[in-house]
């Protein structure tokens, strides 16, 4: 309830501010004009196809990154030599800002959706990989040795020891990657002009449709909140299962 009052307060503030001398309505339109613009957007087919493009780029990019991150993480984590070899490389490559790839994406794919995908996959892959590696490191050596002593093969150990241990980390990685993927999808569209909400914001800005621009930004924010909530719910679901299993083992 208090949270709603906070949101209401922001809406009210944005409604009042443009009528004061603090900011001009040209820069920050009052809430009701943003709401009207949002209504126009929702009635516009172009908005929905842009939303769709963004979500497709987000979902496809995220899926590729998650699968690649998990596979790479488990292979690296399960082979000690690989782990030692890659540790520093990952620290080398991870801080390379994803936006460094923007010019490359433009040259390779122009304003096609592949440009967006390249950035989304690159940025979210690291989030998953790092978390999977943390998870693999967290495997209890006693559990692993127990599995070995019962003659479990490599695949069975991955399936029954490594994967359950790493799962909570994987879920954290997926949640972080989901947020990063949206940021990069919108960024790529905004800067490169690939189809999606980002490029619609760029169009609104260049045509001076300030209220529409704010409305679209609100949509990206809501999208971010929704993705966070869903990712958290999925994570909690997976973790509650996991912790109950662990709890039984511990007792």
């Amino acid at each position: 309830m208090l949270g709603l009052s906070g949101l209401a307060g922001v809406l009210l503030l944005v409604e009042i501010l443009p009528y004061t001398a603090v900011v001009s309505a040209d820069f920050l339109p009052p809430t009701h004009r943003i709401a009207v613009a949002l209504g126009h957007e929702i009635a516009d087919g172009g908005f929905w196809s842009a939303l769709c493009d963004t979500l497709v780029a987000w979902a496809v990019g995220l899926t590729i990154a998650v699968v690649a991150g998990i596979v790479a993480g488990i292979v690296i984590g399960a082979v000690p030599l690989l782990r030692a070899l890659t540790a520093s490389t990952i620290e080398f490559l991870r801080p390379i800002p994803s936006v460094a790839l923007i010019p490359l994406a433009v040259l390779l794919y122009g304003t096609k959706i592949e440009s967006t995908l390249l950035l989304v996959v690159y940025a979210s892959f690291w989030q998953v990989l790092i978390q999977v590696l943390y998870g693999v490191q967290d495997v209890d050596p006693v559990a692993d040795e127990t599995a070995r002593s019962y003659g479990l093969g490599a695949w069975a150990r991955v399936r029954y020891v490594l994967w359950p241990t790493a799962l909570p980390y994987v879920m954290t990685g997926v949640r972080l990657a989901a947020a990063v993927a949206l940021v990069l999808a919108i960024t790529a569209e905004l800067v490169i002009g690939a189809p999606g909400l980002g490029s619609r914001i760029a169009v609104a800005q260049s045509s001076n449709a300030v209220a529409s621009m704010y409305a679209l930004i609100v949509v990206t924010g809501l999208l971010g909140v929704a993705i966070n909530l869903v990712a958290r719910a999925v994570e909690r679901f997976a973790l509650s299962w996991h912790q109950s299993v662990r709890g039984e083992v511990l007792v």
Partner: protein
Amino acid sequence: MTRILARLGLALALPAALFAAWWLGTAGSDNFYVPPLRDILIRFPEVWTWDRLRADVLPSLIRLAAGYTVAVLAGVLLGVLVGSGRRVRAVLEPVLEFFRAIPPPVLVPVIMLFAGIGDTMKVVVIAAGCVWPILLNTVEGVRAVDGVLADTCRSYGIAGPSRLWHLVLRSASPQIAAGMRQALSIGIILMVISEMFAASNGLGFTIVQFQRSFAIPDMWSGILLLGLLGLALSVLFRLVESRALAWYHGQRRAQRGPAR
């Protein structure tokens, strides 16, 4: 000594291998967009001369430093305020979550409205994008102050600024540092993007200029430099962090040690 060498060898083996693969893989490349690594490396010192570093890289770094500093100060200050009051937190948390969820680069067009296209715009963009992870992590850290430690402070009459400094900020510092680390990578992204939008100098501006004029090896050398810059800043951050939070890492090792 041999152990250090062995570790160094392991650490450098894969980067060296990747580098070699890139070198060999592109050696005879006639793809216009993927020039041989050799050409890129030859262009690197020619493109990134001292004059150019001073004219383009330094302004970028100064804007980044200014925006980042503003974000850290504002984020910690607001975070302590929000985190200390249960009611304030309940009112503001959904609002903050919403603002955090907005992809930071969309701030560029908004802030351009207010602050034009000059240095102020870029500093404000960087600050406005970096502030959220720091703010929310500070709130989280302030909220998680240990109850026994808080009781200890109360019973010894440690209150006010002394409590803020010795208890609240110190115990939230690992979370604040985590937020600052996230903010740093957001800051670098925004530094580049704000320059791609509208600028007359800066690293992002220069790289886009190379791309538009199809100076492909030059563009690649810019990407390389940006990567090195990201790496250098993250190494610097980790050095500072491991010093400032030596107690935290030591404590964690001590707690984990016997369990293993």
